[in-house]
């Protein structure tokens, strides 16, 4: 089973802290969306996972192998598309794929190029030089490069950026198609909430270099607690909540396993908060807005 672990990752660029003690684990297949506004730290997180930048503190591992210590081994079963990809301008798309096939030690070169180019619909321009490709074509070539060798972990940083609506849909469909097989980890960084909701199983909201919220996109263990008035800070115990975020007279909360709504209400009352409603909640947009405003 593929796995990804970020443990206390801090990244500073001069006086700017791009990531501040970020930790999370992905220990099974599925698509995980990293959602956040521009400058939140999403790309930095993915750059650390792909050895493009090194963490100032903490450790990032892929399949248990430290990326900064053993990058070649850690990245052996990883495919990545980070930022808007650029390729050597005088090489054709076919040559670029062939280069990656050789670097990833894939045996049947022709068959692998045929497979990834068919999957990403780039067969029509395989013999065009990278310098002559449009933004959208490069984006698809980047995705094809990431898929070479059928990696266990696929890291995609805003893969639909700069594409027209049909191009965006095509890429999302490809990601869904790969995710449907449930044998890979796909990390998808995006600032489009609907994209994350459509494609991902789990969504991690990042803001100002920290993880703001981590939620399952399919289950309803999240509740929205509306209070009679704006309450003070409440520190929920582990038996009741995994995580929570207060926003005015609303608290977004992920229930701990087995926790009941009545327990949440009782706990709030004990802490001086009068609860108006507790409703099941999965509106990522509201959580996102409350976290990032």
């Amino acid at each position, binding site marked *: 089973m593929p796995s990804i672990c970020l443990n206390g990752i801090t990244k500073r*660029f001069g006086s700017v802290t791009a990531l501040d003690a970020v930790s999370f684990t992905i220990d099974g297949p599925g698509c995980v969306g990293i959602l956040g506004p521009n400058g939140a730290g999403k790309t930095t997180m993915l*750059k650390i996972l*792909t*050895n*493009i*930048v*090194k963490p100032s503190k903490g450790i990032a591992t892929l399949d248990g192998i430290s990326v900064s210590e053993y*990058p*070649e*081994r850690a*990245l*052996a079963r*990883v495919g*990545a598309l*980070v*930022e*808007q*990809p*650029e*390729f*050597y*301008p*005088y*090489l054709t798309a076919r*040559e670029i794929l062939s*280069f*990656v096939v*050789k*670097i*990833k*030690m894939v045996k049947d070169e022709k068959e692998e190029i045929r497979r990834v180019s068919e999957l990403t619909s780039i067969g029509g321009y395989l013999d065009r*030089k990278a310098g002559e490709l449009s933004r959208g074509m490069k984006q698809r070539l*980047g995705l094809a*490069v990431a898929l070479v060798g059928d990696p266990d972990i696929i*890291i995609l940083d805003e893969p639909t950026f700069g594409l027209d609506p049909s191009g965006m849909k095509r890429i999302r469909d490809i990601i869904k198609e790969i995710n449907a097989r449930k044998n890979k980890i796909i990390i998808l960084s995006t600032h489009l909430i609907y994209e994350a909701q459509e494609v991902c199983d789990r969504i991690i909201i990042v803001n100002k270099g920290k993880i703001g919220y981590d939620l399952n996109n399919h289950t309803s263990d999240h509740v929205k607690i509306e209070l009679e008035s704006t309450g003070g800070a409440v520190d929920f115990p582990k038996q009741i909540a995994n995580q929570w975020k207060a926003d005015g007279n609303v608290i977004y909360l992920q229930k701990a396993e087995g926790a009941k709504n009545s327990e949440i209400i009782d706990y709030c009352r004990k802490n001086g908060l009068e609860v108006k409603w507790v409703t099941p909640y999965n509106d990522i947009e509201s959580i996102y807005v409350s976290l990032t405003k």
Partner: protein
Amino acid sequence: MNAGMTKFAASTSYYFRNYYRSRSFYLMLAMSLLVSGLMMFFTLRYVNSLTGFLPNLNLTSLSMPTKESVFGFLWSYVLLYLPVFSSVFFGSSAISSEIENRTAFHIFALPISRSSLLISKYLAAVMVTVVISMIYILMQAATFIYVFQIPLISGFFYSVALLIIFIFSMTAFTFMLSSIFNKNTYAYISVFLIYFLIFTAYQFIAELLYKTTPFYLLDNAAGIIEKVYVNISLSPFNFNFSLNPVGFGEIAQSVLVMAIYAIVSMAVSLIIFERKEVR
């Protein structure tokens, strides 16, 4: 072939391909053909009036081997600029372009060590520079055989071997400067400033004030490529004119200087490239 070697061979081949298809390559190729064509024209036209260009010797004519050596010197004197410009074109942007053109996002995430990437790119840059220089060398050889009707002299082969060593060290030097910057323009300007301005100014000062030629400067060491024909120094403060080639000691010293430049520059480039981050 083991995995590391396969990856290294693949990246060298792809970098070489990307270099020889570039505009810079065709520009340098045109320069090489143009300059060697001009040299061929001047050789054919002035082969019998060479003594007029050498007033210091008060000679009425030159013996055949000397004439050949003087022409060898002149061809090599002009040749030296080709690998310099070629290295500047291919080496100065070698690392900075990976950052500026954002190709680093693609290659850094691949399962290949950065040292393999850097050394393979370095070898590819050396190879294209050798190809460009060889066009000039072949024109030189063809002209000599045609004009003098004798096989090539030993000085020619020494000169070519030293030229290849110089290409290795000059390319490594440009790679080192390229690794410091994230912008191609800064890298280009730095190489030109250091090689053509700082080295020359330093040499002038050393010769003028201390009456010594700084043998440890790369451009001085490269002068050995022409001095294996005849030992002429064209420096205004340290003029030297001898129709004999330099001795083994001076050749060994220059080779050592060039080798040190190559090794130190590549070591520094590797250290910087290994720590390079793309924000």
